[in-house]
Each structure stands twice: as structure tokens, then as C-alpha cells.
């Protein structure tokens, strides 16, 4: 049984930073290499698979993040109920995994999505992250995978001063506490 329970209890607001958990959201990991896979995903989701490093594409409901030359993450903007999540997974699984075009893995319970908003979010992240956000913060849709306070994270720059951060479930509470601690000092 997958664990969809929320790991974080409350949204927190500081003078220039707002931190909130957005769960449960649909998250699916995609892996594939050949051209058929790329076109099939495009047709399934009506979104073009981003092939440029550190970029993303999307529509109103879904985002497609580039993770690696043969790996992507799909996630939904809004909270989803589990029925929608499971049916989306089933459809992709039947059309991609079963036809051996690529692999589809439901990682809804694996990643926790945390939304960060406000003019000082990058100062807060930089307190524990080696990534250079100078260009990143002005490029809408940019994606990076890096370390935040020694924890693996995926960061999606949704809009100016509005980003979604993904952290593995077992690290999420610890990172949440660290971010709240760090937010008080920027």
C-alpha cells in the first residue's frame, strides 16, 4: 500500500517567504530513449517532451520536467484525488510500459512537493545549496536537481519567485524544519 499521508502539517509564512506543502499531487517518472517514445508521450499528454537540459514544458494541469537525457518527471499543478492519480498512471502504463516503449513509474508517494513563494526564497535556498541561482531565478520553467542541506532535491522554477521543490518522503520533514529555520535568518 502506497503511503500518501502528508508529512508536513502546516503552511508557514515569514516576511518574504511562504512555505507550503502541496499534496497529494500526481507524480510519474518516465524513462525512454527512442523517437517513438518521445512522440507517444507528446500525443498522450498533449505536451512536447523537453529535450533541452534543465528545462520543462507543460499545460494548465501538468508539468514535464527534464531530469536526464532519458528521464523525465510528470507532476500535476493542483492537488489530485487518488482515483485520478491511479487512472492517469494506468493509462500511461498500458500505452508506454506494456508496449515496451519506455518505463512508467508512479512516484506520487515517493516525492513530496513543497511550494516556495516570495522575494527571498533564493536567499533561503542558497544558505544550504551549492547551485548558482543567478540565471535560474529569472528563467521561467527552469529545472535543476541538486543538494539542499545535503538532501537530494528537484527544483522547478514555476514563475518569478514561485517554485516547486521535490524532496524524498523520508527526508521531507527534516528539510521542512531546516527551511523554516533558514527562512528566519534571511
Amino acid at each position, binding site marked *: 500500500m502506497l503511503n500518501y499521508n502528508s508529512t508536513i502539517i502546516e503552511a508557514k509564512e515569514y516576511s518574504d517567504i511562504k512555505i507550503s506543502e502541496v499534496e497529494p499531487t500526481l507524480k510519474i517518472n518516465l524513462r525512454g530513449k527512442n523517437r517513438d517514445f518521445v512522440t507517444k508521450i507528446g500525443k498522450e499528454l498533449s505536451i512536447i517532451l523537453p529535450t533541452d537540459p534543465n528545462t520543462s514544458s507543460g499545460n494548465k494541469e501538468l508539468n514535464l520536467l527534464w531530469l536526464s*537525457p532519458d528521464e523525465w518527471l510528470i507532476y500535476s499543478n493542483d492537488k489530485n484525488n487518488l482515483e485520478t492519480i491511479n487512472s492517469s498512471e494506468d493509462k500511461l502504463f498500458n500505452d508506454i510500459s506494456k508496449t515496451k516503449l519506455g518505463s512508467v513509474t508512479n512516484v506520487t508517494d515517493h516525492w513530496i512537493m513543497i511550494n516556495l513563494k516570495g522575494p527571498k526564497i533564493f536567499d533561503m535556498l542558497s544558505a544550504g545549496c551549492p*547551485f548558482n541561482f543567478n540565471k535560474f531565478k529569472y528563467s521561467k520553467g527552469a529545472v535543476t536537481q541538486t543538494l539542499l542541506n545535503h538532501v537530494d532535491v528537484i527544483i522547478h522554477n514555476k514563475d518569478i519567485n514561485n517554485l516547486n521543490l521535490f524532496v524524498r518522503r523520508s527526508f521531507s520533514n527534516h528539510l521542512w524544519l531546516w527551511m523554516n529555520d533558514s527562512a528566519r535568518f534571511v
Partner: protein
Amino acid sequence: MFLINCPYCGERDQSEFSAGGEAHIVRPKQPTELSDDQWAEYLFMRKNIKGVQFERWNHSHGCRKWFNMVRDTSNDKIHAIYKMGEKPPIK
């Protein structure tokens, strides 16, 4: 800060990477025909020189891809980075 230019993601901090030892070590075609000494030579013996060395690296906290690097072990100067399967651009 020691930066490494991942061939897929671009320039990133060294802390995102893990070193994977010497590169271009060819696995013997017929392991069963080797003596224990020859097998140990392939398995464990590495040059580990002071100077320019050919190494494998993994962008473990980023795209998780392996690549090759030519690095001077005495001063960490990186001379070249190239993808797996590619020929070294320098000798």
C-alpha cells in the same frame, strides 16, 4: 569552489558528483583463463598517479549519468570532459 562541467547539465559544484575511479580499464574477454594474479590485476590494481589521470565520474545528485574526465590529481585542474563511450580528446 571546485566546479565540474557535467556533459549533460552544465557547470555544477563538485559536491554533486562522485568519483568512480580510473577510466578505460578493459574487462578481460576470457576471465576463466586468467590466473588469480591476472584477475586481481584487472580488478584492484589502479595507477593512482600524481599528475594527469583519466577518471570516471558520476553526476550522482543531478542527472545520475556517468562520464569521463581528464584531471590533474596534483592541482585538480580539469583538462577534458567527455561522454561514456567516446575517445579521450587528449592523450
